């Protein structure tokens, strides 16, 4: 793989949230290990999918990469620079290059601001426009880009539907011409009919501006539609990395197999032939994750070694990695 192709590289990233007890003298009693030592990279112009159950640390990964949360340990290398250690003023500049789209379009827009104030904020903060006329022009451009009308500019968020609000969120993320956008479950809160519109919009914008996406979702059909490569996450760890087609045709990790077998297929014959893997129990607590392989208490193929040794990511086929003792 050519190194110049890589836009962002994550190395041994950890994010622990400390648990504290006591009022005046708080003591450290444990950690929620939301993200525990994960590494991956994103190539320029690709869409990398990140899937996993609720609470497995997907959104934490998003927020750490975009530097909304401080990583506990590890490196995030964006265009050759480790952005976990850069000073405040450089971080500000970096904000122009990476943006985020949120899951809940109802919470993501300030209800007291008009659409033009919301989209105009990044322009103001980074002083990329010289006067209000230029700013208005850019806002109109952005509105048009995401499929909204010019007269929407003076409206407030509560006057829009969920899909329209997500469009406003996308317009805000695009305002500074970023290279990289983290989409944190951008379609999960939307109706199925609107979901497709937003996905198509994101794909069109990617083509037009050469954007790179980290697309987080628990919706496997959306991931399959939009992503080039897919990461599968379980309880703070990566369990499988594979190109899109490869993952859906021959998933290696039992967890991935279970996830895929939960996706409905609109053909009863195929559905009947498919091997069903049904998971038992709930996701264990990330405070005290199981020993060895974190998936072993729920794994249908569990072996003795699984509870003792933690499996590492291994390249099984070209570009297809998995962390499982079976392979």
């Amino acid at each position, binding site marked *: 793989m050519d190194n110049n192709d890589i836009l962002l590289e994550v190395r041994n990233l950890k994010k622990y949230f400390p648990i504290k007890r006591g009022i005046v003298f708080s003591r450290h009693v444990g950690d929620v290990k939301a993200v525990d030592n994960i590494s991956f990279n994103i190539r320029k112009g690709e869409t990398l999918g990140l899937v996993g159950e609720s609470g497995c640390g997907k959104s934490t990964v998003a927020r750490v990469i975009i530097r909304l949360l401080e990583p506990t340990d590890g490196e995030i290398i964006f265009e050759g620079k480790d952005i976990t250690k850069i000073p405040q003023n450089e971080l500000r500049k970096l904000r122009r290059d990476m943006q985020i789209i949120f899951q809940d379009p109802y919470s993501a827009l*300030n209800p007291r601001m008009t659409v033009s104030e919301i989209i105009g904020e990044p322009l103001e903060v980074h002083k990329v426009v010289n006067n209000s006329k230029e700013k208005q022009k850019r806002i109109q451009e952005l509105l048009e880009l995401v499929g909204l009308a010019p007269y929407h500019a003076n409206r407030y968020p509560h006057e829009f539907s969920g899909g329209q609000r997500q469009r406003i969120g996308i317009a805000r993320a695009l305002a500074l011409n970023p290279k990289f956008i983290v989409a944190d479950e951008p379609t999960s809160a939307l109706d199925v009919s609107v979901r497709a519109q937003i996905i198509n919009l994101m794909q069109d914008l990617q083509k037009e501006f050469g954007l790179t996406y980290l697309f987080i979702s628990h919706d496997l059909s959306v991931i399959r539609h939009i992503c080039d490569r897919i990461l599968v996450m379980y309880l703070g760890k990566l369990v499988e990395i594979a190109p899109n087609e490869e993952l859906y045709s021959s998933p290696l990790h039992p967890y991935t197999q279970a996830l895929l077998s939960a996706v409905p297929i609109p053909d009863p014959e195929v559905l009947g032939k498919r091997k069903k893997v049904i998971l038992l129990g709930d996701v264990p607590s990330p405070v005290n994750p199981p020993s060895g392989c974190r998936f072993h208490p729920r794994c249908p193929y569990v072996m003795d070694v699984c509870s003792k040794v933690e499996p590492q990511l291994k390249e099984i086929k070209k570009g297809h990695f998995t962390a499982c003792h079976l392979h």
Partner: protein
Amino acid sequence: MADELILQQSIRKPRSLWKIAWKRLVKNRLALVGLSIVLIIIFIAIFANYIAPYDPLKVDLSKYLLPPSREHLLGTDEFGRDILSRIIFGARVSLQIGFFAQVISISLGTVLGLLAGFYGGWVDDVIMRIVEILFAFPFLLFVIAVVAVFGPGIQNLYLAVALIGWAGVSRIVRGQVLSLRERDFVASARAVGAGTLRILFKHILPNALSPIIIEATLGMGGMIMLEAGLSFLGLGVQAPTPSWGSMVQAGLAYMRSAWWYPVFPGIVIMIVVFGFNLLGDGLRDALDPRLYI
């Protein structure tokens, strides 16, 4: 039908949440009654010079404790001063104290509440422990102590009320900030590169404003009551300045012979406090955060 709707929507003016709240407020009759009482009393306080039929300080012993008549609508006091005129001028004192005391405690409470909620950690600990100490302290006792140390008078009354009144406000604001700072729009402002001041004053404060407005209005009634209570105890406004509380106190001595002396100022206090409370309740409904999405 659908076309019409779209057309209407495109013509319709944008409506901010403030406008919606205002519309809701004017639909509420009780709130309107409250608002009218408040506006009338403010008007009376401002134009007291023109409205009052007599000089509130003019002593005329020949008119000693006259009952209500056409000449003196609400009667006269023991110095022959017109009670109506004194009530009208008293509105100035009461509103002034209520207004300034509220302005001081609301601004102090808002700033400290914002800091406590936004920064958390030791800042929050220090501010909230002070708040708890103030809450544990009997309010009236504290004011009496301040007045005892610095002497009675309007300025010291402001001081006393401001020193303690911010505590409740800061707790309300802190609670708001705690929930607002976790919202995605704050995260997105940060992701865009907005500074702390911008986040505090453009994103958090405007969304925390509704409970502050409600607290300010409801608190006005309380402040007027407090002034009346302190003046009644002789700790507030000093003679001969007319204030509602001191009028009730002075009149109480003549309760049996001249009922109109303490009763009318008392009724006015009741009506005005009632007005502020009605308005506050109306605002609470109109600004209901559950109706914001």
